[in-house]
């Protein structure tokens, strides 16, 4: 159910918030065979539409997964082929040292992130994390004017990271937050080709989630669905983490619960999982969790919203790790939910 080659292309593709062009282009091409239409809205969201069967009005379902990723932005040049940078989204500066990077200038340039070497640092300095302002990207270019020409200020930079297959069906790579969710969108539309469903399905890969859940605001407004489900990642459990901070890998998707989740929708997702025998977890989010669900909920006059998350370790590093089985089970859960969806259920969502 999960196409490893596609997940690889999605993870390795570049799509820093506001510069999602490369990954959006890939998605338009990938989604087209499974959709009745694929468009982009004015903010850049990719919107694939798949019509349901039977008489109108049909339930209108929005599936939303952000396609942008955190990254770096070039802010200045230094003699000797070096670039200064700032961050886009929640980058842990400490994960950047020694990284191989791709500079997306007027052409693609390889680079490496350096800083003062340990033997020139005082013992006190060595205990501290290195400040982002003291790091630089080495492009290996010699001429300043060439550097300025090839890498305009504002060029984005991504980590050069090949998707790595680990043991036990787990994979590691960059931007799996949230290309794994995008993978679910694609898998879901593909599987819907083979089954009967009454609902009209809008699968949206949103922009600019990492800088403030922006794409989901306009896409939800434009589509005006009866209900919306955000697909994102949640913290996978790992060594050194408290038990209540993360969700184990391979225990299935985590169904979110909190103020931004509609109770009937939450119940329906759990029922769907139980009906088809999917192991799932419950992710409580008492405060605004940073996902598209938060944006969808308040579009227009308010939209019943749910959240399904794939457990992912080491979030916002370039070695984000997840289980392919959890991705596959998330697709299966959405299919079960969509197949069982009736107009009567949707109509009841505003009745408290």
């Amino acid at each position, binding site marked *: 159910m999960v196409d490893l080659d596609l997940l690889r292309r999605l993870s390795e593709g570049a799509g820093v918030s506001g510069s999602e062009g490369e990954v959006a282009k890939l998605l338009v091409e990938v989604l087209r065979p499974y959709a009745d239409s694929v468009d982009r809205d004015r903010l850049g969201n990719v919107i694939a539409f798949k019509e349901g069967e039977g008489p109108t009005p049909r339930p209108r379902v929005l599936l939303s997964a952000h396609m942008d990723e955190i990254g770096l932005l070039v802010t200045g040049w230094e003699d*000797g*082929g070096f670039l*200064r940078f700032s961050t886009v989204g*929640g*980058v*842990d500066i*400490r*994960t*950047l*040292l*020694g*990284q*191989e990077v791709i500079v997306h200038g007027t052409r693609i*340039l*390889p*680079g*490496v992130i*350096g800083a*003062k*070497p*340990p*033997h*020139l640092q005082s013992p006190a300095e*060595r*205990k*501290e*994390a290195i400040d982002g302002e003291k790091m*630089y990207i*080495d*492009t*290996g*270019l*010699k*001429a300043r004017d060439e550097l300025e020409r090839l890498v305009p200020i504002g060029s984005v930079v991504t*980590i*050069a*990271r*090949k998707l*790595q297959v*680990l*043991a*036990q*069906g*787990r994979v*590691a790579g960059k931007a799996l937050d949230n290309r794994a969710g995008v993978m679910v969108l694609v898998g879901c539309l593909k599987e819907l080709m083979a089954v009967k469903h009454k609902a009209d399905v809008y699968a949206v890969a949103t922009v600019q989630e990492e800088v403030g859940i922006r794409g989901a605001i306009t896409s939800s407004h434009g589509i005006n669905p009866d209900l919306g489900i955000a697909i994102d990642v949640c*913290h996978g459990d*790992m*060594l*050194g*983490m408290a038990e209540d*901070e993360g969700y184990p890998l*391979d225990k299935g998707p985590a169904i979110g619960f909190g103020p931004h989740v509609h109770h009937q929708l939450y119940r329906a997702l759990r029922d769907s999982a139980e009906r088809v025998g999917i192991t799932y977890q419950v992710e409580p989010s008492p405060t605004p969790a940073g996902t598209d669900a938060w944006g969808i909920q308040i579009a227009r006059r308010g939209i019943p919203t749910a959240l399904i998350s794939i457990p992912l*370790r*080491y*979030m*916002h*590093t370039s*070695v*984000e*790790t997840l289980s392919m089985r959890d991705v596959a089970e998330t697709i299966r859960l959405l299919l079960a939910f969509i197949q069982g969806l009736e107009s009567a259920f949707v109509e009841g969502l505003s009745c408290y």
Partner: protein
Amino acid sequence: MLLERLSTAFGPPGQEDEVREILRQEITPHVDKIWTDALGNLLAEKRGSVQGAPRVLLAAHMDEVALMVTHIDKNGYLRFRTMGGIDQRVLVSKLVLVGPQKVPGVIGSKAIHLLTPEEREKAFHLRDLYIDIGAGTREEAEALVSIGDGVVFNSSFCHLGDGRVRGKALDDRVGCSALVEILQRRYPVTLVAAFTVQEEVGLRGGRVVAFGEEIDLALVLEATTAFDVPDSKPHETVTCLGQGPALTIMDSTLIADPNLLTILRETALEQGIPYQLRRTGGGGTDGGAIHLTEGGVPTAVLAVPCRYLHSPASVIELNDYRHLVDLTDAFLAKFMERRTKLG
């Protein structure tokens, strides 16, 4: 490109097998004698064209800084320690390869969302870090890796900017590659080539390669720190990329033989080969071990300047590598005429 194959090969200290096999295949057609010793050093002899000519030891180390698996926990995570001088802060968010079977793994860290502002300022420490190979239990992990396995960075080798390359373990695969090139030629002097083990953990292999070989002088081919980057003061650069191979006057293990140094500098001047002097008294190479062998061996070190040494992605300029080969070549070709200077 031989350098690319060497850079991506697996060679933690004491586990240099893959590097040794590549080198053995490369040099076998070009040498008169080839052997290994009790420590795992790969040695070769190439007789000079002049009877009774001096015997010159050329050394380059095969190992790289690495990690070692020290514990496998019940959830399948691997704990590790460093082998050689690795800054603990470069380990996070990297891909690694574990053991001779090169099992892929990652070194992750707790998501930034879950950290306090104070935690975000703190440098990573070894005790916080571990390798995740995807295994969910100790048994699953033990089916793939063992305690004691070496771990190297899983980096790619690529061309960078203007005539530079980026890759792991350029320290000292550049020296290995240069030595292979030298062995393809014949000189008046006899060459004894030593591809050494365990340099990064205390010059272990280098300690024994000159013993019993009646070595008259030694050249160590290395990679050395270049810190010609923003925020470094001119006196801190140590070496600069693009200014030719660096000659060591003194480091923390060796004061280079002054006469040998003079011959190298004269040779470079005469041949128009750029070189620079290494501007620090720190660091060390196999030269420190070799020059104290038996009654002492006059020794010098030639090194390719290298940025981000001991990190997942180091950078050299190919011209510096080329000029290191050229200077070594010219030195060996002309040594017979110049050796009267040697004390």
